[in-house]
């Protein structure tokens, strides 16, 4: 699927934002549709069949979180939410409700494109393949083997699971809750210290400098992301 066929729905009540997004996306070969509120969004998804939605969290009639929840009842369409700084609770709620990633306003078009590419790639290539390579890190999921700069790294089962989840969502942010649920299971959502300790141990094993992590990036207040630039 090349980019000229991809359809993007831009949802924001601010005309200026819609304008610059339309200009930029069109220049990058996307077909752009617009909506200004929750109801229009749901209609547009059915009518225009976009491949991705860029959704502002601060919509007038319906909170962006609610739109996400409603959409996720019947659609897996990728959603990137736009939020302002310190809107942490809403951001996390939207991500937990099923949004794929977020961008903090003001943002640059470059950042947006990068996020979009990651999210769309997952849709295009849902099978990530047994071996995942990024820079010096190799994760062979068939053989449960992790190599850093060619040398094998010994991980505990939990650390491995954590890395695996991050890798299968490479480039995408995962909230604390999502990670806890996928690695430890239901009922562990409150145990964020478990997560932090394991992330810390994992970093010490695969990062060359845990204070300037190359692979596992902390999204403060939200969760973690495996850095994956396409």
């Amino acid at each position: 699927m090349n980019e000229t066929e991809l359809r993007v729905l831009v949802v924001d009540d601010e005309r200026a934002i819609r304008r610059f997004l339309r200009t930029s996306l069109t220049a990058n070969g996307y077909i752009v549709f617009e909506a200004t509120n929750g109801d229009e969004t749901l209609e547009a998804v059915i009518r225009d069949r976009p491949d991705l939605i860029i959704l502002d969290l601060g919509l007038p009639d319906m909170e962006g979180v609610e739109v996400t929840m409603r959409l996720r009842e019947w659609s897996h369409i990728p959603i990137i939410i736009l939020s302002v700084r310190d809107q942490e609770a809403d951001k996390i709620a939207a991500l937990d409700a099923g949004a794929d990633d977020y961008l903090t306003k003001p943002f640059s078009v470059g950042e947006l494109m990068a996020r979009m590419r990651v999210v769309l790639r997952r849709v295009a290539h849902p099978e990530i393949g047994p071996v995942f390579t990024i820079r010096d890190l190799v994760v062979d999921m068939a053989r449960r083997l992790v190599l850093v700069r060619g040398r094998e790294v010994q991980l505990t089962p939990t650390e491995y699971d954590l890395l695996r989840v991050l890798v299968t969502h490479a480039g995408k942010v995962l909230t604390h809750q999502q990670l806890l649920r996928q690695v430890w299971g239901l009922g562990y959502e409150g145990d964020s210290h478990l997560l932090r300790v394991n992330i810390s141990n994992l970093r010490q094993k695969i990062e060359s400098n845990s204070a300037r992590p190359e692979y596992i990036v902390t999204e403060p207040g939200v969760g973690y992301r495996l850095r994956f630039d396409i």
Partner: protein
Amino acid sequence: MTTLIGIPLRSFIDPTNLVMLYLLAVVLAALRLGRYPAVLASFLSVLAFDVFFVQPYNTFAVADAQFVLTFAALLGVGLLISTLAAQAREQEKAAQDRATHTRTLYELSRDLALVLDPIDVVNTMTTYTDRIFRGKAVLLLAYNEELKLVKQTDCHLDKQGLDVADRVFREGKPAECLVDNQGEVYGAFFPLRSTQGIIGVLGLWLSKLSTTLTSEQWRLLEAFASLAAQALTRINLMLEARQTQLLRESEKLQSALLNSISHDLRTPLASITGALSSLREDAAFLDEAARSLLINTAWEQAARLDEFVGNLLDMTRLEAGVRKVKPEFYDVQDLVGVALERLGVRLDERDIIIKVPETLPPAPIDLPLMAQALFNLVDNALKYSPRDCPIVIDAKVVDTNLQLAVIDEGPGIPAEDSMRIFNKFYRVQRSSEVAGIGLGLPISMGIVEAHGGRISVANRSKGGAVFTIIIPLEIPLNLQESEKKE
């Protein structure tokens, strides 16, 4: 005694004159010993005179009936003298007391004139109550129509005492009650009046009931209360004056700040508008390089404006207490990573040395907030130190605290500025070269203090500044509530 002097003289002196000696004795008794001894002396004198100096000697019988008159006169005069002398004595004592009371009041008012705090008022009143009455004082002040006890050490005020005090406060009339069953101590409560009405109640603990006090003593107590009231009124007025002054100063500061903010926001905006207007209007005359330059200018200034607005919002939220600190245990390395990540490309040309050992224990921090605090410190270091100098981030544990230091090799902080740099909008250099609205350090300080820590600043001996964030490794009590709610 007079009798002993008189007997040998019996033969020589006429009995009439001896009577005078007895009278003298009675007067002396009255002056020295008081009324009742003098009365006793009068009676004894008459009897002694009768026995020893009136014929027949050594009997109570009287030969010459005229002596009965003498006896009566002697007794009468003696009693009168007793009374008068006793009265004179009492009046002299009363006058002395009054003088003492006046002096006491003078000293009390002199001491109260220097007092700055209601607690000092209580202490002073206790000193004086003790001096005159061997008692103590308690003070209750009215706050919002309710009486509250000003802290005092050993006077116990039970429910009954509080009720009486309350009644005095509302009715404005003194009252008293027993405050200590064992020691028979009575509390006399006086309303404290000022121009603003009754501002409180003064309780004086005395070892006897007020009805046993003289009216002089009672008036003295009332005077005590009056002086206490005056002192308290004075203290209140002083506080009001100071608050008014602070308010005025704060308003002056606010308008200065608004001017400063207005300027700092408008300047980048002016650059953006200028650059974009040129792109619009001069399009035909601009070559690729010029267009590129204008676009980059607008871009950079927009970033600067974004930073300013972000800082202002952070500061406002911090001061409004909107954002509560929710500490969780994070690796210090994680904190450093997040802060540096946020600095992005600005770090590319600089040498950042990170000395954060893996063995450091996790620290209780609110990650987004503390990352902002650290970011501001590193941002400052980047701005104020030359490009070729490294910046060091050093973390270690000292006692029960984490010490996270940002060290640069710039010009350092002049001694006189070391406190001022934490003031809002203060900048060591005001130039467009060094971008910044002057809120970075105060924000960092506010965040660190909200964690129960502090920031210290010092200069390196070899030049450059060291900013150290010091936070406890255990969650402070006042933040533990929010931890539990997680």
